[in-house]
């Protein structure tokens, strides 16, 4: 016989608390909704995404998709989104390299390298990214010489205030045909993986590791066939050359893009360096000593013993740094790169559709974040499984 009054029954109370919470939430939401509608009505504005089909009629400086001012607002936003994605993806690749180098440098027994890395990490981590971006853009890149007096680095890589020019592969007439070869080569890797796995399941003893060479040899063979059949290679080097007032050929990174990418890579790299250092230091010294006493060289110990273990510690925080990099790319607005936030801001200014634009903005960044963390979680699960 349950004698507790229902208002003191914990189960009832729990439901009651949630009902209250929903009510409060609904009240707040309703209050905000009423405010929004009255405020909009007062200004004679209406909500809706109809404006997205109207022509944007503003220019976008650089885009990886084709874009004209006569395109729609939706297209403009898409162009901005692609710009953000490109700069983030490149940034993630480069910042990982920089971060690992600096992180290992922080642990180096070489005093100069150690202090160098420490100074880099110390200064970059303690100052705002926005300021760094402005410094790189206004203080460094725009101070480079003009096109005529370009700074030439080996490569050739030309640094000018109108952008960075570098060697790039240019597709030849046979490029479309080559895509088929590359596709078949990639496909062959999957096929090999499938065959080897099936063979392994049937075999009673582990297959010889030499079979893994098939992953290398067969795709290369397929590509070699391509070289024999096709008259010319798919890409030819396009080298930037000064002709007249400007450089011809090669790949040009605009100053805004270069400053943004550089700034993001340098900034995030400092954080990744600390994560890498902490991860490596978290692997106990005994592990290294044991590996060394088993006869592994220092390099082998680092590669085979320390790194796999450190990786498990490193991946989750690095994931959040990748996300930070993507989100931080929104600071591009300060240096004139038309990223998603910048384009969305312009659309908002031209249409006045504040609520609609900010909703799109947040949802897009949120999806990028969720998608990146999903990928990294998959990877994380994989390396965690390897160990157990």
């Amino acid at each position, binding site marked *: 016989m349950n004698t507790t009054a229902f208002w003191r029954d914990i189960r009832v109370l729990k439901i009651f608390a949630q009902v209250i919470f929903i009510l409060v939430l609904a009240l707040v939401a309703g209050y905000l909704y009423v405010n929004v509608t009255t405020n909009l009505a007062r200004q004679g504005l209406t909500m809706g995404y109809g404006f997205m089909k109207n022509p944007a009629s503003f*220019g976008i400086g650089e885009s990886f998709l084709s874009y004209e001012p006569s395109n729609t607002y939706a297209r403009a936003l898409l162009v901005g989104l692609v710009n953000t994605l490109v700069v983030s993806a490149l940034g993630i690749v480069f910042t990982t390299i920089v971060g690992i180098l600096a992180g290992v440098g922080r642990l180096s027994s070489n005093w100069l390298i150690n202090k160098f890395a420490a100074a880099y990490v110390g200064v970059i981590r303690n100052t705002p990214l926005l300021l760094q971006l402005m410094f790189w853009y206004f203080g460094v890149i725009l101070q480079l010489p003009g096109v005529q007096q370009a700074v030439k680095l080996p490569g050739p890589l030309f640094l000018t*205030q109108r952008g960075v020019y570098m060697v790039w592969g240019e597709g030849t007439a046979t490029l479309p045909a080559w895509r088929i070869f590359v596709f078949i080569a990639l496909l062959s890797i999957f096929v090999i993986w499938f065959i080897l796995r099936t063979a392994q399941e049937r075999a009673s003893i582990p297959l010889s590791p030499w079979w893994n060479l098939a992953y290398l040899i067969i795709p290369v063979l397929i590509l070699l066939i391509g070289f024999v059949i096709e008259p010319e290679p798919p890409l030819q080097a396009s080298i930037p050359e000064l002709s007249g007032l400007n450089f011809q050929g090669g790949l040009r990174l605009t100053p805004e893009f270069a400053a943004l990418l550089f700034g993001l890579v340098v900034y995030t790299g400092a954080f990744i360096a600390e994560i890498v250092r902490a991860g490596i230091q978290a692997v106990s010294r005994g592990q290294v000593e044991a590996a060394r006493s088993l006869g592994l060289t220092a390099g082998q110990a680092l590669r085979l013993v320390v790194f796999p273990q450190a990786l498990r510690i490193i991946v989750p925080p690095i994931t959040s740094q990748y996300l930070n990099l993507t989100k931080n790319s929104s600071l591009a607005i300060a240096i*004139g790169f038309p990223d998603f936030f*910048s384009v969305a801001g312009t659309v908002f*200014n031209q249409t006045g559709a504040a609520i609609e634009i900010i909703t799109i903005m947040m949802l897009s960044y949120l999806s990028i974040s969720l998608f990146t963390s999903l990928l990294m979680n998959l990877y994380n699960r994989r390396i965690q499984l390897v160990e157990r």
Partner: protein
Amino acid sequence: MRKLLFPLFSLLVLTSLVLAGCGTPAATPTAAPAAETPQTPEVAGGERLQAILDRGEVICGAHGTFQGFGFVDSDGNWTGFDVDFCRAWAAALFDNPNAVEFRGLSAQERFTALQSGEVDVLARNSTWSYARDVELGLTFGPVNFYDGQAIMAKKSIVDDPAAGLQALEGANVCVQSGTTTELNLADQFRAAGVNYTPVVFEDQNAAFQAYDEGRCDAITSDRSQLATQGQAVLQNFDDHIILDVVMSKEPLAPAVSDGDPQWAEVVQWVVYGMIQAEELGITSQNVDEFLTSEDPVVRRLLGVEGELGAMLGLSNDFIYRVIKHVGNYGEVYERNLSVFNLARGQNELWTNGGLMYSPPFR
């Protein structure tokens, strides 16, 4: 004990924040009428004016970083063409050109500030356009500066001001985002069939700096801005040239929120009074001599005879105060813009072939 400090501490800070946030307007009786009862179209006339009179100062939205029009120097002093108009309204109401509180507003927030009642009047080189007048619920005063969008280029690229946009084929053009300028740029280049690459900055100064450093071949903005900013922030203004192409009409005018026609009229007639005074040759130097003038036009304007000021609920000598403290239109122009060699052009009096024309004071 110490463990409890943290939450307690933050709670107090939060409370103080709430007090600062909600309390500031309420605890400021001077600003209270403005903050709590923004002028909506259904509010009866005269309320805003009364609120300003009660408060004892005009809250004027201005540009803070635009030399010549609205600029705050490193000591926090406001100067500029638009700023002088703010002072003129203060002089008309309070006989004190310093009874103004300036709010530096960005291009993006200026109209919101007006609509929400944060500022009484906006004098921030804002273009009078149909949509702003009608859709945003604003009342624009008389045009105090006739402007137009222009484009400035390096002399190394274009050496003839008469050259058209065609001379800028393939150019990088620096421009500020969030302005009509950005749209006109796209429209005009499209119409002329000229390819260009926009480099867009959210801050006008950043656009000028990038142009100056050589990032762009040209920069576009209002002609007045190109001339003033150009001389202020370009390292060598003589290396640049402003093309004759007129890319748009930009009549710059002060604006108030719809809802208090009486206040709107004060704003309008002070500007007209300054134009009229210039036409009559009345300056801040000689205005006292004109008080004894026999000319009825002058006598009415300066409030020596008639009840013109009282009709607006002001002192009859409100134009006298404006001229005495701030000067006539020409003086204000001269004081702020002559250093930039910005020719009067359309901003000359109608008697000199310009567009500045005041309805009669009678």
